[in-house]
Protein backbone atom coordinates (compact mmCIF):
# COMPACT_ATOMS: atom_id res chain seq x y z
CA UNK A 1 0.00 0.00 0.00
CA UNK A 2 2.84 2.41 0.78
CA UNK A 3 4.18 1.76 -2.72
CA UNK A 4 0.95 3.08 -4.25
CA UNK A 5 0.97 6.35 -2.31
CA UNK A 6 4.67 6.89 -3.07
CA UNK A 7 4.13 6.58 -6.80
CA UNK A 8 1.47 9.31 -6.76
CA UNK A 9 2.43 13.02 -7.17
CA UNK A 10 4.97 13.96 -4.51
CA UNK A 11 2.98 16.82 -2.94
CA UNK A 12 -0.19 15.07 -1.79
CA UNK A 13 -2.13 18.04 -0.50
CA UNK A 14 -1.74 20.32 -3.49
CA UNK A 15 -2.33 19.84 -7.19
CA UNK A 16 0.30 20.52 -9.83
CA UNK A 17 -1.14 22.55 -12.69
CA UNK A 18 1.29 23.06 -15.57
CA UNK A 19 0.71 26.28 -17.47
CA UNK A 20 2.54 26.31 -20.79
CA UNK A 21 4.75 25.95 -22.84
CA UNK A 22 2.45 26.03 -25.87
CA UNK A 23 0.07 28.96 -25.77
CA UNK A 24 -1.54 31.09 -28.48
CA UNK A 25 -0.43 34.74 -28.45
CA UNK A 26 2.56 34.11 -26.18
CA UNK A 27 5.75 36.03 -26.85
CA UNK A 28 7.98 33.59 -24.95
CA UNK A 29 7.09 29.93 -24.46
CA UNK A 30 7.46 29.39 -20.72
CA UNK A 31 6.19 26.88 -18.17
CA UNK A 32 4.63 28.03 -14.91
CA UNK A 33 4.20 24.99 -12.73
CA UNK A 34 1.62 25.95 -10.14
CA UNK A 35 1.00 23.97 -6.98
CA UNK A 36 -2.56 24.72 -5.98
CA UNK A 37 -4.35 23.84 -2.75
CA UNK A 38 -7.97 24.04 -3.88
CA UNK A 39 -8.12 27.38 -5.62
CA UNK A 40 -5.24 29.07 -3.82
CA UNK A 41 -1.66 28.88 -5.05
CA UNK A 42 1.03 27.78 -2.61
CA UNK A 43 4.14 27.41 -4.78
CA UNK A 44 5.35 28.25 -8.27
CA UNK A 45 8.19 26.89 -10.38
CA UNK A 46 9.19 28.59 -13.61
CA UNK A 47 10.98 26.70 -16.39
CA UNK A 48 12.44 28.33 -19.47
CA UNK A 49 14.68 27.51 -22.38
CA UNK A 50 12.22 26.80 -25.17
CA UNK A 51 13.26 29.72 -27.29
CA UNK A 52 17.01 29.80 -26.82
CA UNK A 53 18.59 30.36 -30.22
CA UNK A 54 22.23 30.88 -29.33
CA UNK A 55 22.23 34.48 -30.50
CA UNK A 56 25.13 35.56 -28.30
CA UNK A 57 27.35 32.96 -29.97
CA UNK A 58 26.09 34.07 -33.39
CA UNK A 59 27.16 37.65 -32.69
CA UNK A 60 30.71 36.45 -32.04
CA UNK A 61 30.89 34.65 -35.38
CA UNK A 62 29.60 37.42 -37.71
CA UNK A 63 30.94 40.86 -38.52
CA UNK A 64 29.49 43.68 -36.49
CA UNK A 65 27.58 45.09 -39.46
CA UNK A 66 25.69 41.84 -39.78
CA UNK A 67 24.96 42.21 -36.07
CA UNK A 68 22.94 45.35 -36.87
CA UNK A 69 20.46 43.04 -38.61
CA UNK A 70 20.68 40.14 -36.17
CA UNK A 71 19.92 42.24 -33.08
CA UNK A 72 16.36 43.31 -34.04
CA UNK A 73 15.43 39.70 -34.63
CA UNK A 74 15.69 38.82 -30.95
CA UNK A 75 12.19 40.21 -30.36
CA UNK A 76 9.56 41.10 -32.92
CA UNK A 77 7.59 43.69 -31.02
CA UNK A 78 10.50 45.74 -29.71
CA UNK A 79 12.79 45.36 -32.70
CA UNK A 80 13.58 49.08 -33.08
CA UNK A 81 14.93 49.45 -29.55
CA UNK A 82 17.17 46.37 -29.84
CA UNK A 83 18.71 47.77 -33.01
CA UNK A 84 19.04 51.20 -31.41
CA UNK A 85 20.89 50.01 -28.28
CA UNK A 86 23.25 47.80 -30.33
CA UNK A 87 24.00 50.62 -32.75
CA UNK A 88 24.68 53.05 -29.92
CA UNK A 89 27.14 50.63 -28.31
CA UNK A 90 28.97 50.31 -31.65
CA UNK A 91 29.00 54.10 -31.97
CA UNK A 92 30.59 54.41 -28.51
CA UNK A 93 33.37 52.04 -29.57
CA UNK A 94 33.92 53.70 -32.95
CA UNK A 95 33.67 57.22 -31.53
CA UNK A 96 30.91 58.45 -33.87
CA UNK A 97 28.07 60.81 -33.10
CA UNK A 98 24.84 61.04 -35.15
CA UNK A 99 23.57 64.38 -36.44
CA UNK A 100 20.73 66.20 -34.58
CA UNK A 101 18.19 65.42 -37.30
CA UNK A 102 19.05 61.72 -37.09
CA UNK A 103 18.59 61.78 -33.31
CA UNK A 104 15.11 63.26 -33.62
CA UNK A 105 14.09 60.75 -36.27
CA UNK A 106 15.32 57.91 -34.06
CA UNK A 107 13.12 59.17 -31.21
CA UNK A 108 10.15 59.24 -33.59
CA UNK A 109 10.62 55.60 -34.61
CA UNK A 110 11.05 54.48 -30.99
CA UNK A 111 8.01 56.29 -29.69
CA UNK A 112 5.74 55.06 -32.48
CA UNK A 113 6.73 51.57 -31.47
CA UNK A 114 5.95 52.26 -27.83
CA UNK A 115 2.41 53.35 -28.67
CA UNK A 116 1.67 50.26 -30.73
CA UNK A 117 3.17 47.88 -28.19
CA UNK A 118 1.16 49.31 -25.31
CA UNK A 119 -2.03 49.11 -27.35
CA UNK A 120 -1.22 45.48 -28.13
CA UNK A 121 -0.70 44.37 -24.53
CA UNK A 122 -3.87 46.10 -23.38
CA UNK A 123 -5.80 44.39 -26.15
CA UNK A 124 -4.40 41.04 -25.02
CA UNK A 125 -5.38 41.78 -21.44
CA UNK A 126 -8.92 42.44 -22.64
CA UNK A 127 -8.87 39.19 -24.59
CA UNK A 128 -7.92 36.98 -21.67
CA UNK A 129 -10.59 38.56 -19.52
CA UNK A 130 -13.03 37.41 -22.18
CA UNK A 131 -13.81 40.96 -23.37
CA UNK A 132 -13.35 40.28 -27.08
CA UNK A 133 -15.16 43.40 -28.29
CA UNK A 134 -12.61 45.65 -26.66
CA UNK A 135 -9.79 43.51 -28.09
CA UNK A 136 -11.08 43.98 -31.63
CA UNK A 137 -11.65 47.71 -31.21
CA UNK A 138 -8.11 48.35 -29.93
CA UNK A 139 -6.58 46.29 -32.74
CA UNK A 140 -8.55 48.26 -35.32
CA UNK A 141 -7.18 51.54 -34.02
CA UNK A 142 -3.66 50.14 -33.79
CA UNK A 143 -3.62 49.91 -37.60
CA UNK A 144 -3.16 53.67 -37.85
CA UNK A 145 0.16 53.40 -36.00
CA UNK A 146 1.30 50.49 -38.16
CA UNK A 147 0.59 52.58 -41.26
CA UNK A 148 2.61 55.45 -39.78
CA UNK A 149 5.50 53.05 -39.17
CA UNK A 150 5.28 51.88 -42.78
CA UNK A 151 5.47 55.43 -44.08
CA UNK A 152 8.49 56.21 -41.89
CA UNK A 153 10.63 53.06 -42.13
CA UNK A 154 9.39 51.05 -45.10
CA UNK A 155 7.83 48.12 -43.31
CA UNK A 156 5.15 47.56 -40.69
CA UNK A 157 7.02 45.41 -38.19
CA UNK A 158 10.75 44.99 -38.83
CA UNK A 159 12.03 48.47 -39.38
CA UNK A 160 15.78 48.12 -40.22
CA UNK A 161 16.04 51.83 -39.60
CA UNK A 162 19.33 52.22 -37.70
CA UNK A 163 22.95 52.28 -38.84
CA UNK A 164 26.00 53.54 -36.92
CA UNK A 165 26.16 57.26 -37.59
CA UNK A 166 22.48 57.97 -38.24
CA UNK A 167 19.44 56.42 -39.88
CA UNK A 168 18.85 54.82 -43.29
CA UNK A 169 15.88 56.79 -44.68
CA UNK A 170 14.72 60.36 -44.43
CA UNK A 171 11.25 61.94 -44.51
CA UNK A 172 10.08 64.87 -46.60
CA UNK A 173 7.14 67.23 -46.13
CA UNK A 174 4.39 65.07 -47.64
CA UNK A 175 5.30 62.14 -45.41
CA UNK A 176 5.43 64.41 -42.39
CA UNK A 177 1.91 65.68 -43.07
CA UNK A 178 0.60 62.15 -43.52
CA UNK A 179 2.09 60.92 -40.26
CA UNK A 180 0.70 63.95 -38.40
CA UNK A 181 -2.74 63.29 -39.86
CA UNK A 182 -2.67 59.66 -38.74
CA UNK A 183 -1.57 60.67 -35.25
CA UNK A 184 -4.43 63.16 -34.98
CA UNK A 185 -6.89 60.36 -35.59
CA UNK A 186 -5.40 58.13 -32.89
CA UNK A 187 -5.40 60.56 -29.98
CA UNK A 188 -9.15 60.62 -29.13
CA UNK A 189 -9.16 56.82 -29.26
CA UNK A 190 -6.29 56.56 -26.74
CA UNK A 191 -8.13 58.82 -24.32
CA UNK A 192 -11.35 56.85 -24.76
CA UNK A 193 -9.67 53.53 -24.00
CA UNK A 194 -7.94 54.87 -20.92
CA UNK A 195 -11.27 56.10 -19.55
CA UNK A 196 -12.87 52.77 -20.37
CA UNK A 197 -10.23 50.84 -18.42
CA UNK A 198 -10.78 53.04 -15.38
CA UNK A 199 -14.57 52.81 -15.24
CA UNK A 200 -15.85 49.66 -16.95
CA UNK A 201 -16.89 47.10 -14.29
CA UNK A 202 -15.88 44.11 -16.46
CA UNK A 203 -12.29 45.27 -16.25
CA UNK A 204 -12.14 46.79 -12.78
CA UNK A 205 -13.64 43.80 -10.99
CA UNK A 206 -10.84 41.54 -12.15
CA UNK A 207 -7.90 43.87 -12.10
CA UNK A 208 -8.06 45.92 -8.90
CA UNK A 209 -6.08 44.53 -5.94
CA UNK A 210 -4.70 41.57 -7.91
CA UNK A 211 -0.96 40.92 -7.85
CA UNK A 212 0.06 43.69 -5.47
CA UNK A 213 3.83 44.34 -5.42
CA UNK A 214 5.54 46.40 -2.75
CA UNK A 215 8.41 48.71 -3.78
CA UNK A 216 10.93 46.79 -1.67
CA UNK A 217 10.11 43.50 -3.40
CA UNK A 218 10.29 45.13 -6.80
CA UNK A 219 13.80 46.49 -6.37
CA UNK A 220 15.22 43.47 -4.53
CA UNK A 221 14.11 41.17 -7.37
CA UNK A 222 15.31 43.52 -10.15
CA UNK A 223 11.90 43.97 -11.77
CA UNK A 224 11.99 46.82 -14.26
CA UNK A 225 9.76 48.89 -16.52
CA UNK A 226 6.05 49.55 -16.00
CA UNK A 227 6.08 46.80 -13.35
CA UNK A 228 8.35 48.96 -11.18
CA UNK A 229 6.69 52.24 -12.13
CA UNK A 230 3.28 50.85 -11.19
CA UNK A 231 4.52 50.39 -7.62
CA UNK A 232 5.91 53.86 -7.15
CA UNK A 233 9.62 53.30 -7.96
CA UNK A 234 10.65 56.19 -10.19
CA UNK A 235 13.07 54.60 -12.65
CA UNK A 236 13.18 55.24 -16.38
CA UNK A 237 16.29 54.80 -18.50
CA UNK A 238 15.25 57.57 -20.87
CA UNK A 239 15.47 60.07 -17.99
CA UNK A 240 18.65 58.61 -16.49
CA UNK A 241 20.84 58.15 -19.55
CA UNK A 242 19.24 60.77 -21.84
CA UNK A 243 20.32 59.00 -24.99
CA UNK A 244 19.53 60.33 -28.51
CA UNK A 245 17.21 63.32 -28.26
CA UNK A 246 15.48 62.51 -24.97
CA UNK A 247 17.26 65.36 -23.24
CA UNK A 248 15.69 67.92 -25.59
CA UNK A 249 12.15 66.67 -26.15
CA UNK A 250 9.93 67.57 -23.15
CA UNK A 251 8.28 64.62 -21.40
CA UNK A 252 7.45 63.25 -17.90
CA UNK A 253 8.05 59.97 -16.09
CA UNK A 254 4.74 58.27 -15.24
CA UNK A 255 4.34 56.45 -11.90
CA UNK A 256 1.45 55.16 -9.83
CA UNK A 257 1.37 54.13 -6.20
CA UNK A 258 -1.05 51.24 -5.82
CA UNK A 259 1.07 48.43 -7.25
CA UNK A 260 -1.72 46.17 -8.47
CA UNK A 261 -2.46 45.01 -12.02
CA UNK A 262 -4.77 47.95 -12.72
CA UNK A 263 -2.00 50.42 -11.86
CA UNK A 264 0.38 48.65 -14.28
CA UNK A 265 -2.08 48.79 -17.17
CA UNK A 266 -2.92 52.45 -16.47
CA UNK A 267 0.80 53.30 -16.43
CA UNK A 268 0.93 51.91 -19.96
CA UNK A 269 -1.98 54.04 -21.18
CA UNK A 270 -0.43 57.14 -19.62
CA UNK A 271 2.88 56.35 -21.27
CA UNK A 272 1.15 55.96 -24.63
CA UNK A 273 -0.30 59.47 -24.26
CA UNK A 274 3.15 60.84 -23.30
CA UNK A 275 4.62 59.16 -26.38
CA UNK A 276 1.95 60.77 -28.52
CA UNK A 277 3.01 64.19 -27.27
CA UNK A 278 6.66 63.36 -27.98
CA UNK A 279 5.89 62.24 -31.55
CA UNK A 280 4.01 65.43 -32.27
CA UNK A 281 6.84 67.57 -30.84
CA UNK A 282 9.42 65.77 -32.98
CA UNK A 283 7.39 66.19 -36.16
CA UNK A 284 6.82 69.90 -35.63
CA UNK A 285 10.35 70.73 -34.45
CA UNK A 286 12.56 68.67 -36.78
CA UNK A 287 16.01 70.27 -37.26
CA UNK A 288 17.44 70.51 -40.72
CA UNK A 289 20.55 68.85 -42.03
CA UNK A 290 21.68 65.43 -43.12
CA UNK A 291 20.27 62.34 -41.44
CA UNK A 292 21.13 59.44 -43.75
CA UNK A 293 24.58 57.94 -43.36
CA UNK A 294 26.54 56.72 -46.38
CA UNK A 295 27.23 53.10 -45.59
CA UNK A 296 30.07 52.72 -48.06
CA UNK A 297 32.37 54.97 -46.05
CA UNK A 298 32.01 53.42 -42.60
CA UNK A 299 35.03 51.82 -40.82
CA UNK A 300 35.48 48.08 -41.15
CA UNK A 301 37.30 47.26 -37.91
CA UNK A 302 35.98 47.43 -34.33
CA UNK A 303 38.68 49.01 -32.15
CA UNK A 304 39.48 47.45 -28.74
CA UNK A 305 37.34 48.63 -25.83
CA UNK A 306 34.15 47.93 -23.90
CA UNK A 307 30.77 49.65 -23.99
CA UNK A 308 27.64 49.23 -21.90
CA UNK A 309 24.50 50.91 -23.22
CA UNK A 310 20.92 50.84 -21.97
CA UNK A 311 17.57 51.57 -23.54
CA UNK A 312 13.93 51.57 -22.58
CA UNK A 313 11.70 49.28 -24.63
CA UNK A 314 8.00 49.20 -23.75
CA UNK A 315 8.68 46.34 -21.34
CA UNK A 316 11.47 47.57 -19.13
CA UNK A 317 15.23 48.10 -19.29
CA UNK A 318 17.36 46.57 -22.01
CA UNK A 319 21.15 46.43 -21.77
CA UNK A 320 23.90 45.48 -24.22
CA UNK A 321 27.51 44.89 -23.20
CA UNK A 322 29.93 44.70 -26.15
CA UNK A 323 33.68 44.01 -26.04
CA UNK A 324 35.77 44.64 -29.15
CA UNK A 325 39.32 43.43 -29.73
CA UNK A 326 40.58 44.94 -32.93
CA UNK A 327 38.99 42.68 -35.56
CA UNK A 328 35.83 42.93 -37.58
CA UNK A 329 33.78 40.87 -35.13
CA UNK A 330 33.04 41.54 -31.44
CA UNK A 331 34.62 39.43 -28.69
CA UNK A 332 31.54 39.22 -26.46
CA UNK A 333 28.01 40.56 -26.72
CA UNK A 334 25.78 40.18 -23.67
CA UNK A 335 22.09 41.01 -23.97
CA UNK A 336 19.80 41.30 -20.97
CA UNK A 337 16.17 41.70 -22.02
CA UNK A 338 13.49 42.97 -19.62
CA UNK A 339 11.29 39.89 -19.88
CA UNK A 340 14.21 37.77 -18.70
CA UNK A 341 14.07 39.27 -15.23
CA UNK A 342 10.39 40.14 -15.10
CA UNK A 343 9.16 36.61 -15.74
CA UNK A 344 11.76 34.40 -14.08
CA UNK A 345 12.22 36.40 -10.90
CA UNK A 346 8.54 37.01 -10.27
CA UNK A 347 7.54 33.57 -9.07
CA UNK A 348 6.92 34.90 -5.59
CA UNK A 349 4.05 37.18 -6.62
CA UNK A 350 1.50 34.47 -7.47
CA UNK A 351 1.35 32.99 -3.98
CA UNK A 352 -1.88 33.59 -2.09
CA UNK A 353 -4.03 34.37 -5.11
CA UNK A 354 -6.46 32.01 -6.79
CA UNK A 355 -5.88 30.12 -10.03
CA UNK A 356 -8.11 32.56 -11.94
CA UNK A 357 -5.78 35.44 -11.02
CA UNK A 358 -2.68 33.84 -12.59
CA UNK A 359 -3.34 34.89 -16.23
CA UNK A 360 -4.15 38.45 -15.12
CA UNK A 361 -0.90 38.76 -13.16
CA UNK A 362 1.18 37.24 -15.95
CA UNK A 363 -0.24 39.51 -18.64
CA UNK A 364 0.23 42.57 -16.47
CA UNK A 365 3.96 41.74 -16.50
CA UNK A 366 3.93 41.66 -20.30
CA UNK A 367 4.19 38.95 -21.99
CA UNK A 368 0.87 37.35 -21.90
CA UNK A 369 -0.73 33.98 -21.64
CA UNK A 370 -4.04 32.78 -23.01
CA UNK A 371 -5.62 30.14 -20.84
CA UNK A 372 -4.98 26.94 -18.90
CA UNK A 373 -5.64 23.35 -19.92
CA UNK A 374 -7.22 20.49 -17.97
CA UNK A 375 -5.31 19.03 -15.06
CA UNK A 376 -3.31 15.82 -15.42
CA UNK A 377 -2.90 13.38 -12.54
CA UNK A 378 -0.10 10.83 -12.73
CA UNK A 379 -0.65 7.60 -10.83
CA UNK A 380 1.68 4.65 -11.08
CA UNK A 381 3.11 5.92 -14.33
CA UNK A 382 -0.19 6.04 -16.20
CA UNK A 383 -1.88 9.30 -17.15
CA UNK A 384 -5.50 9.97 -16.46
CA UNK A 385 -7.20 13.17 -17.55
CA UNK A 386 -9.82 14.66 -15.28
CA UNK A 387 -12.11 17.64 -15.60
CA UNK A 388 -12.32 20.26 -12.89
CA UNK A 389 -15.67 18.94 -11.70
CA UNK A 390 -14.31 15.47 -11.04
CA UNK A 391 -11.38 16.94 -9.17
CA UNK A 392 -13.66 18.95 -6.90
CA UNK A 393 -15.64 15.83 -6.06
CA UNK A 394 -12.50 13.81 -5.49
CA UNK A 395 -11.26 16.06 -2.73
CA UNK A 396 -14.37 15.50 -0.64
CA UNK A 397 -13.74 11.75 -0.64
Amino acid sequence: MTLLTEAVVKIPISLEVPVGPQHPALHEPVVLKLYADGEEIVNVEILTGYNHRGIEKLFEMSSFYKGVFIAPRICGICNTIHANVYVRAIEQLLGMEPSPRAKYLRVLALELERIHSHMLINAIMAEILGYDTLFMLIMRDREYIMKAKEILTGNRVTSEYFMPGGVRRDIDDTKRERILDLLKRVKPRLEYYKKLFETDPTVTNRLIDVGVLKPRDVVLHSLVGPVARGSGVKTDVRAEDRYDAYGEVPWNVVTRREGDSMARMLVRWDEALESWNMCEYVLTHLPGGQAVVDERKLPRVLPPGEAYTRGEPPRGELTYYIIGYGRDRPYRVKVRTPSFTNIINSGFSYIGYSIADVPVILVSYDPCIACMERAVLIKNGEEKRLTLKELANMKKR
Partner: protein
Amino acid sequence: MSIWQEILKNVFKKPVTIEYPKVETPIEKDSRGLQYADLNKCTGCSLCAIECPSNAIEMRKLPENIKLKHNPRGLYPVINYPSCIFCYRCITICPVNAFVTTSEYRLATETDKLFSDVYSLKTLGQG
Protein backbone atom coordinates in the same frame (compact mmCIF):
# COMPACT_ATOMS: atom_id res chain seq x y z
CA MET B 1 -19.66 55.14 -19.26
CA SER B 2 -19.96 51.92 -21.12
CA ILE B 3 -19.09 50.52 -24.49
CA TRP B 4 -22.70 50.40 -25.77
CA GLN B 5 -22.53 53.75 -27.58
CA GLU B 6 -19.43 52.63 -29.42
CA ILE B 7 -21.05 49.36 -30.48
CA LEU B 8 -24.16 51.17 -31.68
CA LYS B 9 -22.09 53.52 -33.82
CA ASN B 10 -20.21 50.61 -35.37
CA VAL B 11 -23.42 48.82 -36.36
CA PHE B 12 -24.11 51.53 -38.91
CA LYS B 13 -20.59 51.80 -40.33
CA LYS B 14 -19.14 49.56 -43.00
CA PRO B 15 -16.66 46.87 -41.88
CA VAL B 16 -12.95 47.63 -41.81
CA THR B 17 -11.90 44.32 -43.35
CA ILE B 18 -10.03 44.67 -46.65
CA GLU B 19 -11.39 41.93 -48.91
CA TYR B 20 -8.15 40.79 -50.44
CA PRO B 21 -7.80 39.56 -53.29
CA LYS B 22 -10.87 41.35 -54.63
CA VAL B 23 -9.48 44.65 -53.32
CA GLU B 24 -5.81 45.63 -53.36
CA THR B 25 -4.16 46.27 -49.99
CA PRO B 26 -3.01 49.89 -49.83
CA ILE B 27 0.77 49.74 -49.69
CA GLU B 28 3.39 52.48 -49.89
CA LYS B 29 5.34 53.03 -53.07
CA ASP B 30 8.67 52.88 -51.28
CA SER B 31 8.06 50.00 -48.91
CA ARG B 32 10.71 47.31 -49.04
CA GLY B 33 9.79 44.64 -51.57
CA LEU B 34 11.36 42.67 -54.38
CA GLN B 35 14.79 43.79 -55.56
CA TYR B 36 17.15 42.66 -58.35
CA ALA B 37 20.40 43.80 -59.96
CA ASP B 38 20.50 45.89 -63.13
CA LEU B 39 23.23 44.29 -65.24
CA ASN B 40 23.84 47.45 -67.25
CA LYS B 41 25.55 48.93 -64.19
CA CYS B 42 26.78 45.94 -62.14
CA THR B 43 30.58 45.52 -62.11
CA GLY B 44 30.71 42.12 -60.38
CA CYS B 45 32.60 43.33 -57.28
CA SER B 46 30.72 40.84 -54.99
CA LEU B 47 30.33 43.30 -52.09
CA CYS B 48 26.61 42.51 -51.82
CA ALA B 49 27.32 38.78 -51.46
CA ILE B 50 29.92 39.39 -48.74
CA GLU B 51 27.68 41.73 -46.72
CA CYS B 52 24.37 39.87 -46.85
CA PRO B 53 23.36 38.97 -43.26
CA SER B 54 21.55 35.79 -44.28
CA ASN B 55 23.92 34.69 -47.10
CA ALA B 56 21.15 34.84 -49.67
CA ILE B 57 23.21 36.21 -52.60
CA GLU B 58 25.30 33.95 -54.80
CA MET B 59 27.59 35.19 -57.58
CA ARG B 60 27.15 33.33 -60.86
CA LYS B 61 28.92 33.59 -64.15
CA LEU B 62 27.15 35.39 -66.95
CA PRO B 63 25.81 33.30 -69.88
CA GLU B 64 28.37 32.39 -72.54
CA ASN B 65 27.61 34.89 -75.25
CA ILE B 66 27.49 38.05 -73.11
CA LYS B 67 30.61 40.14 -72.73
CA LEU B 68 30.27 43.42 -70.84
CA LYS B 69 32.99 46.06 -70.74
CA HIS B 70 32.18 47.26 -67.23
CA ASN B 71 32.09 43.71 -65.81
CA PRO B 72 35.57 42.18 -66.39
CA ARG B 73 35.08 39.20 -64.07
CA GLY B 74 31.80 38.24 -65.68
CA LEU B 75 29.91 37.65 -62.39
CA TYR B 76 26.45 38.84 -61.43
CA PRO B 77 24.48 38.50 -58.16
CA VAL B 78 21.55 36.10 -57.89
CA ILE B 79 19.28 36.57 -54.87
CA ASN B 80 17.57 33.58 -53.27
CA TYR B 81 14.24 35.10 -52.29
CA PRO B 82 13.15 32.51 -49.67
CA SER B 83 16.31 33.30 -47.67
CA CYS B 84 16.23 37.05 -48.15
CA ILE B 85 15.10 39.17 -45.21
CA PHE B 86 14.66 42.38 -47.30
CA CYS B 87 16.93 44.46 -45.12
CA TYR B 88 18.23 46.28 -48.26
CA ARG B 89 21.87 46.07 -47.15
CA CYS B 90 22.84 45.05 -50.70
CA ILE B 91 21.26 48.22 -52.06
CA THR B 92 22.94 50.61 -49.65
CA ILE B 93 26.41 49.00 -49.92
CA CYS B 94 26.60 48.80 -53.74
CA PRO B 95 29.25 51.28 -54.97
CA VAL B 96 27.54 51.91 -58.33
CA ASN B 97 23.84 51.83 -57.22
CA ALA B 98 23.09 48.90 -59.48
CA PHE B 99 19.98 47.56 -57.72
CA VAL B 100 16.39 48.15 -58.82
CA THR B 101 13.83 48.27 -55.97
CA THR B 102 10.10 47.63 -56.20
CA SER B 103 7.33 47.41 -53.65
CA GLU B 104 6.20 43.93 -54.72
CA TYR B 105 5.24 41.90 -51.65
CA ARG B 106 3.38 38.99 -53.23
CA LEU B 107 6.23 36.51 -53.35
CA ALA B 108 4.53 33.11 -53.21
CA THR B 109 5.09 32.08 -56.78
CA GLU B 110 6.22 29.37 -59.20
CA THR B 111 9.63 27.76 -58.75
CA ASP B 112 11.31 29.46 -61.67
CA LYS B 113 10.78 32.90 -60.14
CA LEU B 114 12.38 32.04 -56.77
CA PHE B 115 15.73 33.43 -57.88
CA SER B 116 16.44 36.89 -59.21
CA ASP B 117 18.27 35.84 -62.39
CA VAL B 118 14.97 35.93 -64.31
CA TYR B 119 14.63 39.65 -63.60
CA SER B 120 18.32 40.52 -63.88
CA LEU B 121 18.83 38.99 -67.31
CA LYS B 122 15.76 40.81 -68.62
CA THR B 123 17.49 44.14 -68.01
CA LEU B 124 19.99 43.25 -70.70
CA GLY B 125 17.21 42.77 -73.23
CA GLN B 126 16.95 38.99 -73.18
CA GLY B 127 15.84 36.10 -70.94
